[in-house]
Protein backbone atom coordinates (compact mmCIF):
# COMPACT_ATOMS: atom_id res chain seq x y z
CA UNK A 1 0.00 0.00 0.00
CA UNK A 2 1.31 3.45 -0.85
CA UNK A 3 1.42 6.08 1.83
CA UNK A 4 -1.38 8.63 1.97
CA UNK A 5 1.13 11.44 2.28
CA UNK A 6 4.73 11.21 1.22
CA UNK A 7 7.32 13.93 1.70
CA UNK A 8 10.11 13.00 -0.68
CA UNK A 9 13.40 14.72 0.27
CA UNK A 10 11.51 17.99 0.55
CA UNK A 11 13.41 21.25 0.91
CA UNK A 12 12.19 24.83 1.02
CA UNK A 13 14.28 27.96 0.75
CA UNK A 14 12.98 31.48 1.25
CA UNK A 15 14.70 34.56 -0.07
CA UNK A 16 15.19 37.13 2.69
CA UNK A 17 15.53 40.83 2.27
CA UNK A 18 18.85 42.48 2.89
CA UNK A 19 19.23 43.29 6.56
CA UNK A 20 21.41 45.91 8.10
CA UNK A 21 24.74 44.42 9.13
CA UNK A 22 24.56 41.24 7.11
CA UNK A 23 25.30 43.17 3.92
CA UNK A 24 23.96 40.84 1.26
CA UNK A 25 20.54 39.57 0.39
CA UNK A 26 20.43 36.03 1.65
CA UNK A 27 18.36 32.93 1.70
CA UNK A 28 16.86 31.05 4.59
CA UNK A 29 16.68 27.32 4.37
CA UNK A 30 13.46 26.47 6.17
CA UNK A 31 13.36 22.77 5.37
CA UNK A 32 16.02 20.41 4.12
CA UNK A 33 15.74 16.84 2.91
CA UNK A 34 12.61 15.90 4.79
CA UNK A 35 11.54 12.31 4.10
CA UNK A 36 8.34 11.28 5.78
CA UNK A 37 5.57 8.87 4.94
CA UNK A 38 2.22 9.05 6.60
CA UNK A 39 -0.17 6.14 6.06
CA UNK A 40 -3.89 6.69 5.59
CA UNK A 41 -5.83 7.12 8.79
CA UNK A 42 -2.82 7.98 10.92
CA UNK A 43 -2.72 10.75 13.46
CA UNK A 44 0.72 12.20 12.78
CA UNK A 45 2.15 14.97 14.91
CA UNK A 46 5.04 17.18 13.87
CA UNK A 47 6.89 18.81 16.73
CA UNK A 48 9.90 21.08 16.67
CA UNK A 49 11.44 24.21 18.13
CA UNK A 50 9.91 27.51 17.04
CA UNK A 51 10.99 28.66 13.60
CA UNK A 52 11.94 25.17 12.48
CA UNK A 53 9.69 25.14 9.46
CA UNK A 54 6.75 23.19 10.88
CA UNK A 55 4.22 25.53 9.34
CA UNK A 56 6.15 25.54 6.08
CA UNK A 57 5.74 21.79 5.96
CA UNK A 58 2.01 22.19 6.36
CA UNK A 59 1.80 24.94 3.73
CA UNK A 60 3.55 22.65 1.26
CA UNK A 61 1.11 19.87 1.96
CA UNK A 62 -1.80 22.29 1.69
CA UNK A 63 -0.53 23.41 -1.70
CA UNK A 64 -0.17 27.00 -0.59
CA UNK A 65 3.49 26.99 -1.59
CA UNK A 66 5.74 24.72 -3.61
CA UNK A 67 8.88 22.93 -2.43
CA UNK A 68 12.26 24.19 -3.67
CA UNK A 69 13.53 20.64 -3.87
CA UNK A 70 11.85 17.26 -3.67
CA UNK A 71 8.17 16.46 -3.97
CA UNK A 72 5.13 16.24 -1.78
CA UNK A 73 2.91 13.35 -2.82
CA UNK A 74 -0.70 12.89 -1.87
CA UNK A 75 -2.06 9.46 -2.78
CA UNK A 76 0.99 9.03 -4.98
CA UNK A 77 0.40 12.21 -7.00
CA UNK A 78 2.37 15.43 -6.50
CA UNK A 79 0.53 18.27 -4.78
CA UNK A 80 0.03 21.05 -7.31
CA UNK A 81 -2.19 23.43 -5.40
CA UNK A 82 -4.81 23.74 -2.71
CA UNK A 83 -7.84 21.51 -2.91
CA UNK A 84 -10.89 20.37 -0.99
CA UNK A 85 -9.26 17.01 -0.27
CA UNK A 86 -7.30 18.77 2.47
CA UNK A 87 -8.83 20.87 5.23
CA UNK A 88 -6.81 23.29 7.34
CA UNK A 89 -7.45 24.34 10.91
CA UNK A 90 -5.55 27.49 11.81
CA UNK A 91 -4.28 28.63 15.18
CA UNK A 92 -6.17 31.92 14.79
CA UNK A 93 -9.44 30.08 13.96
CA UNK A 94 -9.88 32.08 10.74
CA UNK A 95 -13.62 32.37 11.21
CA UNK A 96 -15.56 34.90 9.16
CA UNK A 97 -16.74 37.25 11.90
CA UNK A 98 -19.84 38.37 9.97
CA UNK A 99 -21.15 34.84 9.68
CA UNK A 100 -22.75 32.72 12.38
CA UNK A 101 -21.30 29.38 13.43
CA UNK A 102 -23.55 27.70 10.90
CA UNK A 103 -22.62 30.26 8.24
CA UNK A 104 -18.96 29.56 8.81
CA UNK A 105 -19.40 25.83 8.39
CA UNK A 106 -21.48 26.48 5.29
CA UNK A 107 -18.68 28.66 3.92
CA UNK A 108 -16.51 25.58 3.56
CA UNK A 109 -19.37 23.73 1.90
CA UNK A 110 -20.02 26.57 -0.55
CA UNK A 111 -16.35 26.68 -1.47
CA UNK A 112 -16.30 22.99 -2.26
CA UNK A 113 -19.52 22.99 -4.25
CA UNK A 114 -21.92 21.14 -1.97
CA UNK A 115 -25.48 21.79 -3.21
CA UNK A 116 -27.37 24.44 -1.26
CA UNK A 117 -30.03 22.05 0.02
CA UNK A 118 -27.50 19.86 1.77
CA UNK A 119 -25.51 22.66 3.39
CA UNK A 120 -27.73 23.52 6.32
CA UNK A 121 -28.20 19.88 7.23
CA UNK A 122 -24.47 19.13 6.98
CA UNK A 123 -23.59 22.22 9.00
CA UNK A 124 -25.96 21.23 11.79
CA UNK A 125 -24.61 17.68 11.78
CA UNK A 126 -20.97 18.73 12.09
CA UNK A 127 -21.62 21.41 14.68
CA UNK A 128 -23.29 18.65 16.68
CA UNK A 129 -20.23 16.46 16.17
CA UNK A 130 -18.01 19.08 17.80
CA UNK A 131 -20.54 19.60 20.60
CA UNK A 132 -21.96 22.94 19.48
CA UNK A 133 -25.62 22.08 19.04
CA UNK A 134 -27.66 25.08 20.07
CA UNK A 135 -24.90 27.54 19.15
CA UNK A 136 -25.56 27.51 15.41
CA UNK A 137 -26.75 31.10 15.29
CA UNK A 138 -24.01 32.65 17.38
CA UNK A 139 -21.46 34.93 15.80
CA UNK A 140 -17.79 34.24 16.53
CA UNK A 141 -17.54 37.18 18.92
CA UNK A 142 -20.25 35.58 21.03
CA UNK A 143 -18.27 32.36 21.40
CA UNK A 144 -15.30 31.50 23.61
CA UNK A 145 -11.92 30.68 22.09
CA UNK A 146 -12.46 26.96 22.47
CA UNK A 147 -15.87 27.14 20.86
CA UNK A 148 -14.49 29.16 17.97
CA UNK A 149 -11.90 26.50 17.32
CA UNK A 150 -14.64 23.87 17.45
CA UNK A 151 -16.48 25.78 14.73
CA UNK A 152 -13.30 25.85 12.67
CA UNK A 153 -12.84 22.11 13.13
CA UNK A 154 -16.47 21.49 12.14
CA UNK A 155 -15.95 23.64 9.06
CA UNK A 156 -12.90 21.65 7.99
CA UNK A 157 -14.59 18.31 8.60
CA UNK A 158 -17.92 19.19 6.98
CA UNK A 159 -16.66 19.20 3.41
CA UNK A 160 -15.14 15.81 4.06
CA UNK A 161 -11.46 16.18 3.21
CA UNK A 162 -9.27 13.07 3.30
CA UNK A 163 -6.61 14.86 5.27
CA UNK A 164 -6.99 17.29 8.13
CA UNK A 165 -4.09 19.71 8.53
CA UNK A 166 -3.89 21.40 11.91
CA UNK A 167 -1.46 24.23 12.53
CA UNK A 168 -1.06 24.60 16.31
CA UNK A 169 -4.84 24.80 16.62
CA UNK A 170 -4.94 24.77 20.41
CA UNK A 171 -1.94 27.00 21.13
CA UNK A 172 -4.06 30.07 21.92
CA UNK A 173 -6.37 28.28 24.35
CA UNK A 174 -6.16 27.97 28.11
CA UNK A 175 -4.92 24.67 29.51
CA UNK A 176 -8.29 23.24 30.50
CA UNK A 177 -10.00 24.04 27.23
CA UNK A 178 -7.00 22.69 25.39
CA UNK A 179 -7.18 19.33 27.15
CA UNK A 180 -10.88 18.95 26.56
CA UNK A 181 -10.44 19.79 22.89
CA UNK A 182 -7.59 17.28 22.60
CA UNK A 183 -9.91 14.59 23.98
CA UNK A 184 -12.61 15.59 21.55
CA UNK A 185 -10.26 15.68 18.62
CA UNK A 186 -9.14 12.11 19.31
CA UNK A 187 -12.77 11.04 19.58
CA UNK A 188 -13.61 12.72 16.27
CA UNK A 189 -10.52 11.25 14.64
CA UNK A 190 -11.49 7.74 15.70
CA UNK A 191 -15.02 8.29 14.47
CA UNK A 192 -14.16 9.77 11.10
CA UNK A 193 -10.95 7.88 10.32
CA UNK A 194 -9.30 10.94 8.75
CA UNK A 195 -5.59 11.22 8.22
CA UNK A 196 -4.47 14.02 10.51
CA UNK A 197 -1.26 16.03 10.34
CA UNK A 198 -1.00 18.05 13.51
CA UNK A 199 1.64 20.69 14.13
CA UNK A 200 2.52 21.70 17.67
CA UNK A 201 5.38 22.92 19.79
CA UNK A 202 4.00 21.24 22.89
CA UNK A 203 5.56 17.89 23.76
CA UNK A 204 2.64 16.83 25.95
CA UNK A 205 0.21 17.56 23.17
CA UNK A 206 2.34 15.61 20.70
CA UNK A 207 2.55 12.54 22.95
CA UNK A 208 -1.11 12.66 23.89
CA UNK A 209 -2.46 12.98 20.36
CA UNK A 210 0.09 11.35 18.11
CA UNK A 211 0.18 7.85 16.76
CA UNK A 212 3.62 8.83 15.62
CA UNK A 213 5.52 11.99 16.43
CA UNK A 214 7.94 13.46 13.91
CA UNK A 215 10.61 15.59 15.56
CA UNK A 216 12.15 18.35 13.44
CA UNK A 217 15.53 19.94 14.02
CA UNK A 218 15.95 23.67 14.40
CA UNK A 219 16.70 25.68 11.29
CA UNK A 220 17.23 24.29 8.75
CA UNK A 221 14.37 21.92 9.57
CA UNK A 222 15.32 18.32 9.05
CA UNK A 223 13.62 15.23 10.25
CA UNK A 224 15.45 14.25 13.42
CA UNK A 225 13.41 11.23 14.47
CA UNK A 226 10.03 9.65 14.16
CA UNK A 227 8.81 8.33 17.48
CA UNK A 228 5.96 5.83 17.53
CA UNK A 229 3.72 6.40 20.51
CA UNK A 230 2.10 3.50 22.29
CA UNK A 231 0.18 4.42 25.36
CA UNK A 232 -1.54 1.05 25.63
CA UNK A 233 -5.29 0.76 25.49
CA UNK A 234 -6.80 4.13 26.24
CA UNK A 235 -9.97 3.72 28.15
CA UNK A 236 -12.14 6.76 28.53
CA UNK A 237 -11.96 8.47 31.86
CA UNK A 238 -8.45 7.29 32.69
CA UNK A 239 -5.75 9.90 33.11
CA UNK A 240 -3.43 8.88 30.30
CA UNK A 241 -1.26 11.91 30.86
CA UNK A 242 0.01 10.65 34.23
CA UNK A 243 0.78 7.09 33.13
CA UNK A 244 4.43 5.91 33.15
CA UNK A 245 4.29 5.23 29.39
CA UNK A 246 3.26 8.80 28.79
CA UNK A 247 6.13 10.08 30.91
CA UNK A 248 8.63 7.86 29.11
CA UNK A 249 7.52 9.06 25.68
CA UNK A 250 7.44 12.62 26.86
CA UNK A 251 10.98 12.33 28.14
CA UNK A 252 12.20 10.72 24.94
CA UNK A 253 10.88 13.57 22.83
CA UNK A 254 12.01 16.15 25.35
CA UNK A 255 15.57 14.80 25.00
CA UNK A 256 15.38 14.97 21.23
CA UNK A 257 14.06 18.50 21.30
CA UNK A 258 16.26 19.79 24.06
CA UNK A 259 19.44 19.56 22.00
CA UNK A 260 17.67 21.37 19.20
CA UNK A 261 16.44 24.18 21.37
CA UNK A 262 19.92 24.77 22.77
CA UNK A 263 21.34 24.71 19.28
CA UNK A 264 18.71 27.14 18.03
CA UNK A 265 19.49 29.53 20.85
CA UNK A 266 23.19 29.35 20.17
CA UNK A 267 22.60 30.06 16.47
CA UNK A 268 20.37 32.98 17.35
CA UNK A 269 23.03 34.50 19.59
CA UNK A 270 25.66 34.11 16.90
CA UNK A 271 23.41 35.58 14.23
CA UNK A 272 22.34 38.57 16.26
CA UNK A 273 24.19 41.81 15.55
CA UNK A 274 26.28 42.88 18.55
Amino acid at each position, binding site marked *: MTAKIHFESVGKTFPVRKTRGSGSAGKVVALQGVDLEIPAGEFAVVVGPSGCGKSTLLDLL*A*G*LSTPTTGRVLLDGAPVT*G*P*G*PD*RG*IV*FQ*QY*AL*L*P*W*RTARGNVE*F*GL*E*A*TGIPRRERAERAREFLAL*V*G*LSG*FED*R*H*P*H*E*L*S*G*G*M*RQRVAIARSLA*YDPDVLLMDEPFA*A*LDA*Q*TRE*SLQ*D*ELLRIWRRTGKTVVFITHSIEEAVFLGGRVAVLTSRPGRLKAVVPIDLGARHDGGDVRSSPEFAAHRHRIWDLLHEEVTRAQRLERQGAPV
Partner: protein
Amino acid sequence: MSTLTAERPATAVPAADPPHRLRRAGGLLLTAVTRSVAIAALLALWEVAPRLGLADRTFLPPFSEVAREWWTMLAGGELTEHVEASLIRSGAGFGLAVLVAVPLGLLIGWYRPVADLLGPLLELFRNTAALALLPVFVLLLGIGETSKISIVLYACTWPILLNTISAVRTVDPTLLKLARSMGLPAPQVFRKVILPSAVPTVFTGIRLAGATAILVLVAAEMIGAKAGLGYLITSSQYNFAIHRMYAGILTISLLGVLLNQLLVALERRFTRWRTPAGKDRA
Protein backbone atom coordinates in the same frame (compact mmCIF):
# COMPACT_ATOMS: atom_id res chain seq x y z
CA MET B 1 -21.11 13.73 25.60
CA SER B 2 -19.45 17.02 24.98
CA THR B 3 -17.29 18.79 27.48
CA LEU B 4 -18.80 22.19 27.44
CA THR B 5 -18.54 22.72 31.16
CA ALA B 6 -15.20 24.45 30.95
CA GLU B 7 -16.48 26.89 28.39
CA ARG B 8 -19.20 29.45 28.48
CA PRO B 9 -20.57 31.64 25.75
CA ALA B 10 -19.03 35.07 25.93
CA THR B 11 -22.38 36.83 26.30
CA ALA B 12 -24.79 36.28 29.13
CA VAL B 13 -28.51 36.51 28.52
CA PRO B 14 -29.94 39.38 30.58
CA ALA B 15 -32.67 38.34 32.96
CA ALA B 16 -35.95 40.15 32.39
CA ASP B 17 -37.45 40.10 35.87
CA PRO B 18 -39.46 43.22 36.85
CA PRO B 19 -37.08 44.82 39.38
CA HIS B 20 -34.31 44.44 36.84
CA ARG B 21 -36.39 46.15 34.19
CA LEU B 22 -37.19 48.96 36.59
CA ARG B 23 -33.54 49.47 37.31
CA ARG B 24 -32.87 49.53 33.61
CA ALA B 25 -35.48 52.21 33.03
CA GLY B 26 -33.83 54.25 35.76
CA GLY B 27 -30.49 53.71 34.09
CA LEU B 28 -31.85 54.90 30.77
CA LEU B 29 -33.27 58.03 32.39
CA LEU B 30 -29.93 58.74 34.00
CA THR B 31 -28.17 58.33 30.67
CA ALA B 32 -30.64 60.70 29.02
CA VAL B 33 -30.04 63.32 31.71
CA THR B 34 -26.26 62.91 31.54
CA ARG B 35 -26.26 63.25 27.80
CA SER B 36 -28.44 66.35 27.60
CA VAL B 37 -27.18 68.35 30.56
CA ALA B 38 -24.27 69.98 28.73
CA ILE B 39 -26.45 71.07 25.83
CA ALA B 40 -29.06 72.41 28.22
CA ALA B 41 -26.34 74.39 29.99
CA LEU B 42 -25.15 75.89 26.71
CA LEU B 43 -28.68 76.94 25.74
CA ALA B 44 -29.24 78.39 29.22
CA LEU B 45 -26.06 80.42 28.92
CA TRP B 46 -27.14 81.60 25.47
CA GLU B 47 -30.49 82.65 26.95
CA VAL B 48 -29.11 84.40 30.01
CA ALA B 49 -25.95 86.09 28.75
CA PRO B 50 -27.69 88.61 26.43
CA ARG B 51 -30.41 89.30 29.01
CA LEU B 52 -27.83 90.12 31.67
CA GLY B 53 -25.91 92.33 29.30
CA LEU B 54 -22.91 89.99 29.21
CA ALA B 55 -23.23 89.92 25.44
CA ASP B 56 -24.63 92.48 23.03
CA ARG B 57 -28.28 91.65 22.46
CA THR B 58 -28.13 93.00 18.94
CA PHE B 59 -25.50 90.52 17.87
CA LEU B 60 -26.47 87.65 20.13
CA PRO B 61 -30.21 87.61 20.78
CA PRO B 62 -31.42 85.24 23.54
CA PHE B 63 -32.05 81.66 22.53
CA SER B 64 -35.81 81.88 23.04
CA GLU B 65 -36.10 84.69 20.50
CA VAL B 66 -34.05 82.77 17.97
CA ALA B 67 -36.15 79.67 18.60
CA ARG B 68 -39.34 81.67 18.03
CA GLU B 69 -37.96 83.05 14.78
CA TRP B 70 -36.93 79.55 13.78
CA TRP B 71 -40.44 78.31 14.40
CA THR B 72 -41.97 81.14 12.37
CA MET B 73 -39.68 80.39 9.48
CA LEU B 74 -40.48 76.71 9.67
CA ALA B 75 -44.23 77.34 9.79
CA GLY B 76 -43.99 79.80 6.88
CA GLY B 77 -42.30 77.14 4.75
CA GLU B 78 -39.30 79.35 4.15
CA LEU B 79 -36.92 77.16 6.14
CA THR B 80 -38.09 74.01 4.40
CA GLU B 81 -37.26 75.61 1.09
CA HIS B 82 -33.68 76.36 2.10
CA VAL B 83 -33.19 72.96 3.74
CA GLU B 84 -34.54 71.30 0.64
CA ALA B 85 -32.19 73.21 -1.64
CA SER B 86 -29.20 72.31 0.54
CA LEU B 87 -30.20 68.69 0.98
CA ILE B 88 -30.70 68.12 -2.73
CA ARG B 89 -27.28 69.56 -3.51
CA SER B 90 -25.36 67.79 -0.78
CA GLY B 91 -27.37 64.60 -1.29
CA ALA B 92 -26.57 64.57 -4.99
CA GLY B 93 -22.87 65.20 -4.41
CA PHE B 94 -22.67 62.72 -1.56
CA GLY B 95 -24.62 60.05 -3.44
CA LEU B 96 -22.47 60.41 -6.52
CA ALA B 97 -19.36 60.24 -4.37
CA VAL B 98 -20.52 56.93 -2.83
CA LEU B 99 -21.34 55.55 -6.27
CA VAL B 100 -17.96 56.55 -7.66
CA ALA B 101 -15.60 56.12 -4.73
CA VAL B 102 -16.68 52.74 -3.36
CA PRO B 103 -16.21 50.74 -6.57
CA LEU B 104 -13.09 52.72 -7.43
CA GLY B 105 -11.65 52.09 -3.98
CA LEU B 106 -12.38 48.38 -4.17
CA LEU B 107 -10.64 48.22 -7.50
CA ILE B 108 -7.60 50.20 -6.39
CA GLY B 109 -7.29 48.23 -3.17
CA TRP B 110 -7.61 44.88 -4.92
CA TYR B 111 -4.88 45.62 -7.47
CA ARG B 112 -1.86 46.40 -5.39
CA PRO B 113 0.22 47.92 -8.24
CA VAL B 114 -2.60 50.39 -8.95
CA ALA B 115 -2.68 51.34 -5.29
CA ASP B 116 1.08 51.89 -5.23
CA LEU B 117 0.87 53.93 -8.40
CA LEU B 118 -1.98 56.18 -7.34
CA GLY B 119 -1.15 56.40 -3.64
CA PRO B 120 0.90 59.62 -3.71
CA LEU B 121 -1.61 61.35 -5.99
CA LEU B 122 -4.51 60.43 -3.72
CA GLU B 123 -2.55 61.62 -0.72
CA LEU B 124 -1.95 64.98 -2.43
CA PHE B 125 -5.62 65.45 -3.29
CA ARG B 126 -6.80 64.41 0.13
CA ASN B 127 -4.55 66.93 1.81
CA THR B 128 -5.66 69.80 -0.40
CA ALA B 129 -8.58 71.42 1.40
CA ALA B 130 -11.59 71.11 -0.87
CA LEU B 131 -12.67 74.67 -0.12
CA ALA B 132 -9.36 75.98 -1.41
CA LEU B 133 -10.42 74.60 -4.77
CA LEU B 134 -13.84 76.21 -4.68
CA PRO B 135 -12.72 79.19 -6.86
CA VAL B 136 -11.41 76.74 -9.43
CA PHE B 137 -14.73 74.92 -9.52
CA VAL B 138 -16.59 78.21 -9.89
CA LEU B 139 -14.30 79.34 -12.69
CA LEU B 140 -14.64 76.08 -14.58
CA LEU B 141 -18.28 75.22 -13.88
CA GLY B 142 -19.90 78.58 -13.19
CA ILE B 143 -21.79 79.51 -10.04
CA GLY B 144 -24.81 77.31 -10.73
CA GLU B 145 -25.77 73.95 -9.28
CA THR B 146 -23.07 72.06 -11.16
CA SER B 147 -20.16 73.66 -9.35
CA LYS B 148 -21.82 73.18 -5.93
CA ILE B 149 -22.65 69.54 -6.48
CA SER B 150 -19.19 69.01 -7.94
CA ILE B 151 -17.38 70.46 -4.96
CA VAL B 152 -19.43 68.26 -2.61
CA LEU B 153 -18.73 65.26 -4.81
CA TYR B 154 -15.05 66.11 -4.80
CA ALA B 155 -14.81 66.62 -1.06
CA CYS B 156 -16.81 63.47 -0.23
CA THR B 157 -14.83 61.26 -2.57
CA TRP B 158 -11.59 61.27 -0.56
CA PRO B 159 -12.69 59.92 2.79
CA ILE B 160 -14.75 57.20 1.08
CA LEU B 161 -12.07 56.30 -1.42
CA LEU B 162 -9.20 56.16 1.05
CA ASN B 163 -11.18 54.19 3.61
CA THR B 164 -12.33 51.72 0.99
CA ILE B 165 -8.79 51.19 -0.27
CA SER B 166 -7.44 50.58 3.21
CA ALA B 167 -10.44 48.36 4.00
CA VAL B 168 -9.57 46.06 1.12
CA ARG B 169 -5.88 46.08 1.93
CA THR B 170 -6.27 45.27 5.59
CA VAL B 171 -8.46 42.18 5.25
CA ASP B 172 -7.32 39.57 7.77
CA PRO B 173 -4.58 37.59 5.96
CA THR B 174 -5.63 34.38 7.70
CA LEU B 175 -9.05 34.64 6.08
CA LEU B 176 -7.42 35.06 2.69
CA LYS B 177 -5.21 32.07 3.40
CA LEU B 178 -8.26 30.07 4.39
CA ALA B 179 -10.06 31.01 1.18
CA ARG B 180 -6.98 30.12 -0.82
CA SER B 181 -6.57 26.78 0.93
CA MET B 182 -10.13 25.90 -0.09
CA GLY B 183 -9.31 26.73 -3.69
CA LEU B 184 -11.92 29.50 -3.81
CA PRO B 185 -11.74 31.34 -7.16
CA ALA B 186 -10.79 35.02 -7.01
CA PRO B 187 -14.24 36.49 -7.77
CA GLN B 188 -15.68 34.46 -4.91
CA VAL B 189 -12.87 35.47 -2.56
CA PHE B 190 -13.77 39.04 -3.39
CA ARG B 191 -17.50 38.58 -2.87
CA LYS B 192 -17.43 36.32 0.16
CA VAL B 193 -14.36 37.45 2.06
CA ILE B 194 -13.07 40.85 0.99
CA LEU B 195 -16.35 42.67 0.46
CA PRO B 196 -18.03 41.75 3.76
CA SER B 197 -14.91 42.36 5.81
CA ALA B 198 -14.46 45.76 4.16
CA VAL B 199 -17.97 46.97 5.01
CA PRO B 200 -17.23 48.51 8.44
CA THR B 201 -14.26 50.56 7.26
CA VAL B 202 -16.08 51.63 4.12
CA PHE B 203 -18.95 52.83 6.28
CA THR B 204 -16.62 54.86 8.44
CA GLY B 205 -15.56 56.63 5.26
CA ILE B 206 -19.15 57.20 4.26
CA ARG B 207 -19.97 58.65 7.66
CA LEU B 208 -17.01 61.04 7.47
CA ALA B 209 -18.14 62.04 3.98
CA GLY B 210 -21.62 62.80 5.30
CA ALA B 211 -20.23 65.42 7.66
CA THR B 212 -18.02 66.79 4.90
CA ALA B 213 -20.97 67.09 2.51
CA ILE B 214 -22.83 69.53 4.76
CA LEU B 215 -19.72 71.46 5.72
CA VAL B 216 -18.52 72.04 2.18
CA LEU B 217 -21.94 72.78 0.78
CA VAL B 218 -22.72 75.47 3.33
CA ALA B 219 -19.43 77.17 2.54
CA ALA B 220 -20.13 76.94 -1.18
CA GLU B 221 -23.60 78.39 -0.71
CA MET B 222 -22.15 81.31 1.20
CA ILE B 223 -20.21 82.36 -1.84
CA GLY B 224 -22.80 82.26 -4.56
CA ALA B 225 -26.36 80.97 -4.29
CA LYS B 226 -29.98 82.08 -4.30
CA ALA B 227 -31.22 79.47 -1.86
CA GLY B 228 -29.88 77.05 0.71
CA LEU B 229 -28.81 77.27 4.31
CA GLY B 230 -25.43 78.84 3.58
CA TYR B 231 -27.17 81.50 1.52
CA LEU B 232 -29.73 82.03 4.30
CA ILE B 233 -26.99 82.70 6.83
CA THR B 234 -24.89 85.11 4.77
CA SER B 235 -27.83 87.01 3.30
CA SER B 236 -29.35 87.38 6.78
CA GLN B 237 -26.07 88.73 8.02
CA TYR B 238 -25.87 91.27 5.19
CA ASN B 239 -29.44 92.35 5.82
CA PHE B 240 -28.84 92.52 9.52
CA ALA B 241 -31.54 89.93 10.18
CA ILE B 242 -29.58 88.48 13.08
CA HIS B 243 -32.39 86.23 14.36
CA ARG B 244 -32.71 84.62 10.97
CA MET B 245 -28.98 84.12 10.80
CA TYR B 246 -28.94 82.22 14.08
CA ALA B 247 -31.99 80.23 13.00
CA GLY B 248 -30.03 79.16 9.94
CA ILE B 249 -27.02 78.15 12.02
CA LEU B 250 -29.26 76.20 14.37
CA THR B 251 -30.78 74.35 11.42
CA ILE B 252 -27.37 73.36 10.13
CA SER B 253 -26.39 71.94 13.52
CA LEU B 254 -29.61 69.94 13.73
CA LEU B 255 -29.24 68.70 10.18
CA GLY B 256 -25.64 67.65 10.78
CA VAL B 257 -26.49 65.77 13.95
CA LEU B 258 -29.48 64.05 12.31
CA LEU B 259 -27.47 63.01 9.29
CA ASN B 260 -24.70 61.65 11.46
CA GLN B 261 -27.17 59.72 13.62
CA LEU B 262 -28.70 58.25 10.51
CA LEU B 263 -25.35 57.14 9.14
CA VAL B 264 -24.25 55.75 12.50
CA ALA B 265 -27.47 53.74 12.69
CA LEU B 266 -26.88 52.43 9.17
CA GLU B 267 -23.29 51.60 10.01
CA ARG B 268 -24.35 49.70 13.09
CA ARG B 269 -26.93 47.78 11.13
CA PHE B 270 -24.39 46.57 8.64
CA THR B 271 -21.65 45.76 11.13
CA ARG B 272 -23.58 44.11 13.91
CA TRP B 273 -21.21 41.14 13.78
CA ARG B 274 -18.31 43.24 14.93
CA THR B 275 -16.72 42.46 18.27
CA PRO B 276 -18.48 44.63 20.83
CA ALA B 277 -16.24 47.15 22.52
CA GLY B 278 -14.44 45.86 25.59
CA LYS B 279 -14.65 42.25 24.50
CA ASP B 280 -11.36 41.42 22.96
CA ARG B 281 -11.18 38.47 20.65
CA ALA B 282 -8.86 35.99 22.29
